[in-house]
């Protein structure tokens, strides 16, 4: 049987579940008494177990099963969450991640998890007050009973009756899977998964466990509580592949009673025994979960509904390479569009102009969509940080809180792929070097718990990611002392440096101020690599720090790497493009306004003198020299806070341009970052304005 087509689905979904497990565990650690979170965790773990068992990854399934046992006790309030339980569960999660990773790499997903399993079992045995009576009440989750006919015990029956009374819909659902289906259990799972998104499965036949192990013919039935419309639900079930039939019947008090009686009639002594064992405890036990399910249902069920307006989120996974091809094709189209616009304006044909204008509008919509397709929320990178910071803080004996804001901010896929490692470095740095030990913090009059803010936000054509902590800050003298010792700066240079320049020293290769080398950071490799990586992505890092108060590492990144807005300028017969993101203003200066300061040309810009740079001289432009003109067009550019003016011949206008590289043969050229193709088919070079500001 060909499992491959299911394998990639399995890997994707496992990763999703592991991610959600991690997130919710952290959430639970903050609020250990919130049982609704336990429910969500339990559900994720349960689905994961089912998928793993179906795919034949036994170790994965058994470990998940043990974790599930612990969680089951917690959610039934048999066990209070404690630190060591969290640690063990986290260890379990790590092992699961490692196994899934192994499967992704083509491995068997096998691992020795006996130690963790033993720990988990110890928790289940030792910590839970497991006596006979507790257990029989604990069997309340209906899924774990194995009966031959779909029959309801008194507890389930009363839950269903209550739900009807409270205005929920109780449905009896019958699902048949196509005969030729290869993996019945997977399909059944997809149905369960779908149902659990918007309600609760009370009882199924065969039991969930049997379905997981494919111990069923081709159909299964279940009782289900939801708010959804039966017809809509039926349609959703039928939308799952390889589902042959689905019948959804809404039950009221009477029909439920009838069905229960039918079930009870076919059931034998088992039901009677069940009834005997819970004489009085049944009522309160039933009431509690029912109340609880009322509480968490709006939270769990309303969320997806609100997001997608009733239907579950419909997504497909697409190979990134295909998106890249789409992007390339689109850039070709963009070049042709600009060309068409130019031709149309020359021809002056009304109908043609109109059509071209319409095409331009459509293609700019298309451009937005193509670019959006490649956008991914930074959350995909951020989501692994809370866990990392927690572990770091534990290993360093520090207390700290990570506050993430703006995780929904979107960035180009290529940037996202590259930005993870630099951010890890910066975070580790913040935790290790920035935040002081709890004693030091108290001594400095700060709260014992340090705070690390991780922020992402849009600003213009850029996305900023900031890592700010309220730690010890950067002391100028310490940095300079260390830099002098390592020979990075000379004494004379050090005297004249601004604070900002001193901060930038942290990014110098071979620099590390940590007195003690820890295994977390402080090897002196790192920050220079971080800077190199961010610069290669077209971004910048700036450090703001107040000694004793804290430090802020601000990373500025371009929104996208493939299409940018640029200003086209002319220099004699040559055309150049300047990225709009670095342009502050354009203007004209008269020859007599240009002053000579120390042999450098300066112009007045809003009250301050800024250098005037001659592009024609730097690029040895043959047929233009601004010195021959009485008035010079200037473009004021910025790099951080510093400004400079570029002298050009003529402005052409603003345009969306597609970035192209200059080919492998040419070496890096200072001041030129790439090329683009203009509407007339000619190549124009793109300036890298950052180079002109020292």
């Amino acid at each position, binding site marked *: 049987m060909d499992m491959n087509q299911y394998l990639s689905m399995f890997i994707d979904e496992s990763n999703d579940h592991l991610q959600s497990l991690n997130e919710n565990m952290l959430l639970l650690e903050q609020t250990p008494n919130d049982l609704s979170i336990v429910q969500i965790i339990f559900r994720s773990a349960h689905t994961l177990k089912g998928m793993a068992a179906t795919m034949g990854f036994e170790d994965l399934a058994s470990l998940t099963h043990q974790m599930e046992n612990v969680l089951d006790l917690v959610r039934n309030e048999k066990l209070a969450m404690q630190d060591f339980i969290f640690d063990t569960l986290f260890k379990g999660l790590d092992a699961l991640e490692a196994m899934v990773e192994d499967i992704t790499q083509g491995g068997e997903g096998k691992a020795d998890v006996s130690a963790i399993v033993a720990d988990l079992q110890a928790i289940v045995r030792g910590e839970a007050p497991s006596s006979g009576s507790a257990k029989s009440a604990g069997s309340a989750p209906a899924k774990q009973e194995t009966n031959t006919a779909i029959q309801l015990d008194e507890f389930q029956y009363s839950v269903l009756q209550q739900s009807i009374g409270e205005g929920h819909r109780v449905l009896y659902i019958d699902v048949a899977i196509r005969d030729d289906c290869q993996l019945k259990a997977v399909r059944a799972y997809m149905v369960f998964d779908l149902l659990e998104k918007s309600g609760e499965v009370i009882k199924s036949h065969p039991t969930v466990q049997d379905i997981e192990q494919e111990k069923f013919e081709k159909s299964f039935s279940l009782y289900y509580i939801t708010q959804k419309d039966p017809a809509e639900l039926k349609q959703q079930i039928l939308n799952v592949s390889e589902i042959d039939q689905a019948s959804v019947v809404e039950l009221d008090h009477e029909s439920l009673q009838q069905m229960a009686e039918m079930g009870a009639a076919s059931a034998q002594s088992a039901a009677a025994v069940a009834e005997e064992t819970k004489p009085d405890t049944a009522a309160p036990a039933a009431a509690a979960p029912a109340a609880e399910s009322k509480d968490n249902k709006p939270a769990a069920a309303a969320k997806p509904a609100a997001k997608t307006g009733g239907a579950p989120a419909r997504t497909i996974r697409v190979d990134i390479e295909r998106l890249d091809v789409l992007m390339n094709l689109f850039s070709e189209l963009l070049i042709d569009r600009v060309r068409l616009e130019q031709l149309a304006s020359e021809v002056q044909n009304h109908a043609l102009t109109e059509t071209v204008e319409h095409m331009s509008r459509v293609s700019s919509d298309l451009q937005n969509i193509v670019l959006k397709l490649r956008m991914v929320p930074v959350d995909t990178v951020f989501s692994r940080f809370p866990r990392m910071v927690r572990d770091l803080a534990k290993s360093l004996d520090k207390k700290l809180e990570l506050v993430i804001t703006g995780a929904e901010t979107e960035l180009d896929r290529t940037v996202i792929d590259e930005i993870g490692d630099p951010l890890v470095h910066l975070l580790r740095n913040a935790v290790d070097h920035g935040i002081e030990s709890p004693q030091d913090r108290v001594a400095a009059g700060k709260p014992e718990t340090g705070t690390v803010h991780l922020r992402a936000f849009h600003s213009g054509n850029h996305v900023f990611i900031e890592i700010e902590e309220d730690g010890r800050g950067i002391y100028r003298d310490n940095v300079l002392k260390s830099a002098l010792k390592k020979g990075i700066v000379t004494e004379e240079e050090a005297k004249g440096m601004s604070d900002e320049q001193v901060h930038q020293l942290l990014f110098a290769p071979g620099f590390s101020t940590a007195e003690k080398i820890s295994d977390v950071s402080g090897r002196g490799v790192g920050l220079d690599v971080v800077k190199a990586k961010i610069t290669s992505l077209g971004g910048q890092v700036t450090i703001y720090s107040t000694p004793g108060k804290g430090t802020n590492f601000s990373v500025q990144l371009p929104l996208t790497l493939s299409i940018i807005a640029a200003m086209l300028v002319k220099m004699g017969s040559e055309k150049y493009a300047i990225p709009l993101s670095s342009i502050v203003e354009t203007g004209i200066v008269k020859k007599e306004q240009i002053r000579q300061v120390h042999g450098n040309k300066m112009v007045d810009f809003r009250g301050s003198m800024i250098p005037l740079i001659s592009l024609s001289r730097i690029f*040895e432009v043959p047929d233009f020299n601004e010195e021959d003109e009485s008035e010079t067009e200037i473009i004021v550019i910025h790099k951080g806070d510093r400004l400079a003016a570029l002298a050009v011949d003529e402005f052409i206008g603003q345009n969306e341009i597609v970035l192209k590289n*200059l080919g*492998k043969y040419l070496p890096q050229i*200072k001041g030129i970052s790439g*090329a683009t193709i203009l509407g007339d088919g000619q190549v124009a070079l793109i300036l890298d304005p950052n180079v002109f500001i020292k």
Partner: protein
Amino acid sequence: MGEDIKVIVFKLGSEEYGIEVDKVQTIERMLPITRVPKTYTFVRGVINLRGVVIPVIDLRGRFGLPETEHTDQTRIIIVVVGEMEVGFIVDSANDVIDLNRDRIETPPEVVGGIKARYLDGVAKIGDDRLLIMLNLSEVLKKSEIIQLESLEE
């Protein structure tokens, strides 16, 4: 007997040169060239070849031959070596011939002013035609260029 290869024949001045056909992507008429500042002196600039930006070398400049005006015979031969795509400006390119490898002989020290290491060999075709086979990877080698440039300075 060695294998037969197909060779693109082009001219620089009166000499005839050959490049194996599988190294050649296309042959184009002159296209508008955008000058690239601050690079090797023999790099004329970059062209737009159907959406791809490709650097163009004046082969005369590369071999230190005197440069001439472009005519309507002037062609750009786009060659692909490894991952590099480069255009060569040549005086004309108008022939494809079959050649047996055995007919390629080791070149003398200098042929038509070009150093021997840029050549694969020389082949005699017909009675009085000499075809100079180029060694593309040597021609495009960058360490070579850097040395050359520093000598000029």
